[in-house]
């Protein structure tokens, strides 16, 4: 039954439509006959009729297509590329996200598919891919790792690491303490530092983009590089909506209000944004975490934006939060400065302030808790707080040397020298020191804990070449070793004046591995090793004078008895396979063995009461080897453990003056940076004092335990490709600063397989000629090193400690099908013969010698009986170049492929850092890295004759290089290694007033 009103409406509508627009008003007045409602209804319809681009005008199948194509309902077990779908995680703005298994690497990943409307917009897609590739180079613990950007069946997807946890948005629904809030903010800031450093701005930092891992609270920032494309459109949309019809903004489906709240003023204005926009957003988040609500509260997006843009600052935190610390109030105020020139200028500045705030908060908390403080494991995620690029670790060669040299009895000192000083001796450029409370010491009181904040750290040297440092007992003099890459020199300066630095031993082809002041401060005792013979202990008057040789064959620095009359040190006896802890008179006479042990060395520290000598010790568990600290009784040589803590490595240690504990360098995992630790005595409770990603070595303490010196190191390496070896055409292939320390190798199709620390352990990655989108090949969290792609491109041969020891392994070039080729006590440095049949490697068995094994595994064959290592097989497969011990000196020798006497010998060009070397393409010479800084690559002909410069780099060090098989590409892993002395003053007060 027709509705009369409806019929009238239709009639008037069509009648009006038939008229010219200017005649319609008159008609409507007449036809509606005073029925205002009717008239308005027709007018509204006429107005709607004039609208274009209404949804109704596009056929429904358009919407259908968009929706259907966006729908990528993958089935469980369905295979997309090499990912097997496990379940649908959810649906985000850009498309669906699945949980999937990487069938190559057997790990879980999140697969994010891009909606089709996204991929159909070419500009948007290109922008996305460019940014995502840039973001995928961001390897930082606090940034969600992008494994791959791929395409399958017409669908673009991103494979990222899978995190189980919740978003900060969800976390915000529960109460968050100030300390927890700071912890999250610090981790987000760390991520920003890493991204901003390489010029990537997130632009969309908000609680929805921040994940908190369930297990350990590790924070991950999502969608770096993805934000730009979507955000741009949202702003454009917002602007257009706003101009046309402000009211729609409230209800329009296109905008979610939550996001607007984190926009910076410049973003809201649609201006160009930079890194400071992320700082603003983090400021809003920090505010929200502490106050419980956003600083800009309003009913509508427009009002929020108006609040963001307005001159008024955000309301004081104290308005919402109970007694927020002043430092937090200040940080928030500075992060939320409307004018970005008044804001924090860099995320690093913000990070530093956040850390300081957290530190003072912890001190306050400790003070409040007073004496009954439980074990200080309260700093769980602190180790992630540093940007990854400051990661420092021992380089490949360092670890190699460790075993290498140990095998040849250069013994303990060289081992320490390398593991702890290593090639990668670095710098401490950024002052961002993570001091953490030593709260659990039973002797601490609230006063002394508060004093921890008074510890100050200062960088004392700046040449970046320091390998070793110590301080005189009275704290007046600093002695340090400078290393230009090949030669070392010894320097002394007055701590107070900072000037007056004098060279006390000129650069020489010597390695100084231990400097100790005598307790009276009159002499320095140093251990020097040259490329021959045994290391020697010398004594030198501090105020000038000649060095006196005291002891030949010494394998650690010496430690003095408290009265200064005796010294203790380690000496290895390779024939017996044992090391002895020796005690001698301070003039080097009267040696006696205090204790011996097999297969492990001592690194002694004599206690202030003279009764015990502490040392590191190695123990073997069921599956692994670890270090502990032991005390040797000076009177009878019995050994007792100090505490039960395990470490992966322990360096040197010094006693606190009152004997209440030790300060030492150590790391818990082989892959972690070496940090300064405190170990109480006799309790044996251990606490990390520093907490960052730098390495610390070579600690020295003043007699009153007030000041401590240490060498702090930082290293970086990225991979460059030089097409046809032209340095001026170099393309940077990787950007994480931790790429290629442990090897690079080309596949026949010119993909570069390289080692990288990007994921937090030494893994292999692969990258194409243009860089970008590096693909992770291994993910075993172990130490995978020195990849060599087989000549047929099928396999990658490498060494790894997956089974505890270093062994030679093989895998398919995509990372699948790992196969263990050797299972001895330690095998490293593989090379593959040109026919692809043999793998030549170095075994620590038999004093470190070359062996070979079939590429399919089986019984290895020993090639050399004399000490030899680091094989490089000639292009014709007939010869091997290697390090070779001859006449007590390391040489580089060329031997027949199946072993035998050297055909050619060179003075070692790999000493002292044992960097890899390779054959020249024509097989007529060897190419190696000149380790001086800046590094260069040289070739030396087998036929004799002078060496020739091949590649000269303007700066930095080269860690490895590799030619592609066809010679058209040269990959070079290069970067910086800097290390400098830092002086930590008021150290004792920090430890609790010892």
């Amino acid at each position, binding site marked *: 039954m027709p509705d009369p009103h409806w019929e009238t409406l239709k009639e008037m509508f069509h009648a009006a439509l038939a008229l010219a627009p200017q005649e319609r008003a008159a008609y409507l007045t007449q036809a509606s006959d005073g029925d205002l409602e009717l008239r308005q209804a027709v007018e509204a319809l006429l107005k709607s009729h004039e609208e274009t681009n209404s949804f109704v005008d596009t056929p429904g*199948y358009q919407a259908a297509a968009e929706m*259907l194509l966006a729908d*990528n309902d993958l089935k469980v077990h369905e295979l997309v590329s090499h990912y097997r779908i496990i379940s649908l995680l959810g649906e985000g703005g850009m498309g669906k996200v699945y949980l999937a298994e990487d069938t190559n690497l057997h790990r879980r990943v999140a697969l994010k598919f891009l909606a089709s409307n996204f991929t159909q917009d070419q500009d948007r897609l290109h922008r996305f891919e460019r940014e995502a590739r840039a973001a995928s180079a961001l390897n930082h613990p606090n940034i969600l790792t992008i494994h791959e950007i791929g395409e399958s069946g017409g669908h673009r997807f991103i494979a990222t690491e899978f995190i189980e946890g919740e978003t900060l948005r969800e976390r915000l629904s529960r109460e968050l303490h100030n300390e927890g809030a700071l912890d999250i903010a610090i981790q987000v800031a760390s991520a920003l530092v890493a991204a901003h450093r390489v010029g990537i701005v997130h632009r969309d930092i908000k609680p929805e983009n921040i994940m908190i891992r369930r297990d350990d609270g590790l924070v991950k920032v999502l969608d770096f590089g993805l934000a730009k494309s979507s955000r741009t459109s*949202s702003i454009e949309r917002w602007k257009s909506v706003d101009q046309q019809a402000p009211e729609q903004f409230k209800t329009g*489906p296109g905008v979610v209000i939550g996001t607007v709240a984190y926009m910076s003023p410049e973003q809201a204005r649609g201006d160009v944004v930079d890194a400071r926009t992320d700082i603003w957003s983090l400021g809003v988040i920090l505010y929200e975490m502490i106050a419980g609500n956003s600083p800009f509260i309003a009913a509508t997006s427009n009002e929020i934006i108006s609040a963001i843009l307005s001159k008024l600052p955000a309301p004081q935190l104290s308005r919402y939060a109970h007694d927020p610390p002043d430092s937090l109030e200040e940080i928030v105020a500075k992060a939320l400065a409307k004018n970005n020139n008044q804001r924090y200028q860099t995320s690093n500045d913000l990070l530093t302030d956040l850390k300081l705030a957290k530190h003072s908060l912890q001190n306050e908390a400790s003070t409040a808790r007073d004496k009954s403080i439980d074990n200080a494991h309260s700093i769980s995620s602190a180790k992630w707080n540093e940007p990854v690029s400051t990661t420092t670790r021992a380089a490949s060669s360092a670890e190699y040397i460790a075993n290498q040299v140990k095998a040849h009895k250069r013994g303990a000192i060289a081992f320490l020298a390398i593991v702890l000083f290593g090639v990668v001796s670095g710098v401490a450029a950024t002052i961002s020191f993570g001091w953490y409370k030593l709260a659990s010491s039973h002797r601490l009181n609230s006063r002394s804990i508060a004093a921890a904040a008074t510890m100050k750290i200062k960088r004392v040297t700046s040449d970046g070449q320091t390998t070793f440092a110590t301080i005189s007992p009275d704290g007046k003099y600093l002695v340090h070793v400078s290393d230009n890459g090949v030669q070392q020199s010894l320097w002394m300066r007055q701590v107070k004046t900072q000037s007056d630095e004098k060279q006390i031993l000129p650069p020489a082809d010597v390695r100084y591995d231990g400097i100790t002041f005598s307790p009276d401060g009159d002499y320095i005792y140093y251990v020097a090793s040259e490329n021959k013979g045994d290391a020697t202990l010398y004594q030198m008057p501090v105020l000038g004078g000649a060095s006196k040789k005291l002891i030949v064959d010494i394998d650690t620095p010496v430690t003095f008895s408290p009265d200064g009359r005796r010294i203790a040190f380690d000496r290895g006896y390779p024939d017996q396979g044992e090391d002895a802890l020796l005690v001698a008179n301070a003039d080097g006479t009267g040696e006696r063995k205090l204790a011996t042990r097999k297969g492990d060395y001592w690194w002694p520290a004599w206690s202030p009461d003279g009764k015990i000598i502490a040392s590191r010790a190695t123990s073997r568990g069921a599956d692994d080897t670890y270090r502990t600290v032991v005390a040797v009784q000076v009177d009878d040589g019995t050994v007792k453990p100090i505490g039960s803590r395990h470490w992966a490595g322990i360096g040197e240690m010094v006693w606190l003056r009152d004997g209440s504990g030790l300060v030492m360098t150590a790391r818990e995992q082989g892959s972690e940076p070496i940090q300064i630790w405190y170990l109480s005595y006799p309790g044996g409770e251990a606490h990390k004092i520093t907490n960052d990603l730098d390495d610390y070595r070579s600690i020295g303490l003043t007699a009153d335990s007030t000041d401590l010196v240490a060498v702090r190191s930082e290293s970086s390496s990225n991979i460059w490709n030089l097409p046809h070896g032209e340095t001026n055409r170099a393309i940077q292939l990787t950007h994480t600063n931790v790429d290629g320390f442990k090897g690079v190798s080309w596949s026949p199709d010119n993909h570069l397989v390289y080692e990288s620390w990007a994921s937090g352990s030494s893994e292999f990655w692969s990258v194409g000629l243009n860089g970008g989108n590096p693909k992770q090949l291994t993910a075993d969290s172990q130490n995978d090193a020195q990849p060599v792609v087989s000549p047929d491109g099928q396999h990658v041969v490498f060494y790894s400690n997956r089974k505890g020891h270093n062994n030679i392994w093989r895998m398919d070039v995509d990372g699948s099908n790992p196969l263990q080729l050797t299972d001895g006590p330690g095998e490293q440095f593989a090379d593959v013969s040109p026919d692809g049949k043999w793998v030549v490697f170095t075994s620590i068995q038999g004093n470190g010698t070359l062996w070979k094994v079939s590429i399919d595994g089986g019984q290895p064959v020993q090639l050399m009986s004399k000490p030899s290592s680091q094989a490089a097989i000639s292009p014709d497969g007939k010869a091997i170049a290697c390090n070779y011990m001859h006449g007590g000196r390391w040489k580089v020798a060329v031997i027949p492929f199946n072993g035998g006497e050297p055909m050619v010998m060179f003075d070692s060009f790999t000493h002292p850092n044992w960097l890899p070397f390779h054959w020249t393409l024509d097989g007529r010479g060897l190419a190696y890295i000149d380790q001086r800084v800046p590094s260069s690559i040289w070739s030396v002909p087998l036929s004799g004759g002078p060496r020739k410069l091949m590649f000269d780099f303007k700066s930095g060090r080269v860690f490895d290089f590799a030619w592609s098989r066809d010679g058209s590409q040269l990959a070079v892993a290069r970067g910086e290694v800097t290390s400098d002395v830092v002086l930590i003053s008021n150290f004792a007060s920090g430890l609790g007033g010892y």
Partner: protein
Amino acid sequence: MPSPPHQVTQLLQQWSEGDETALAKLMPLVHDELHRLAHQHMRRESAGHVLQTSALINEAYLRLVDQPQIRWQGRSHFFGIAARLMRRILVDDARRRNAVKRGGSFIQVPLDEANTVVQEQAANVAALDDALQRLETIDERQGKIVELRFFGGLSIEETAEVLKVSPGTVMRDWTFARAWLRNKMSCA
């Protein structure tokens, strides 16, 4: 895997005869087939080409419906059923999508503020269906016209043929309905 055509044909026929349980069985079949085809098209066409969805839908029907077995009351009946089916599928899909969108948080799926075109379309489809349901109660023929034109993708002439009215009438009704729907949707 494509469904056996005769099964779909049979279900379509049952549904057209008023058996709603047939629709429940029919929808997943058609839905899957549409997806499959859509993806196949995506693979064939390089990115940047807008998919010709009318072709897609035609193809879907042709594949799904075992043509020789059709014993419909003519072609127009088929189109009418097809449009209805399409509407059900699309609207269902859209409402499901909207529900997901509002559903809160997902592990590592930040809810992006940039409501994608897809989500807007989903919201639009749902809004249109709401408005259309109202229109149908007021003016059944206009409702039918919108269903055939919008969801079925039929031309004015084809719509006229299905409804057994003149193209002029369809045009008039379509013009009015469109204005009315636009008006309704913008006030929603």
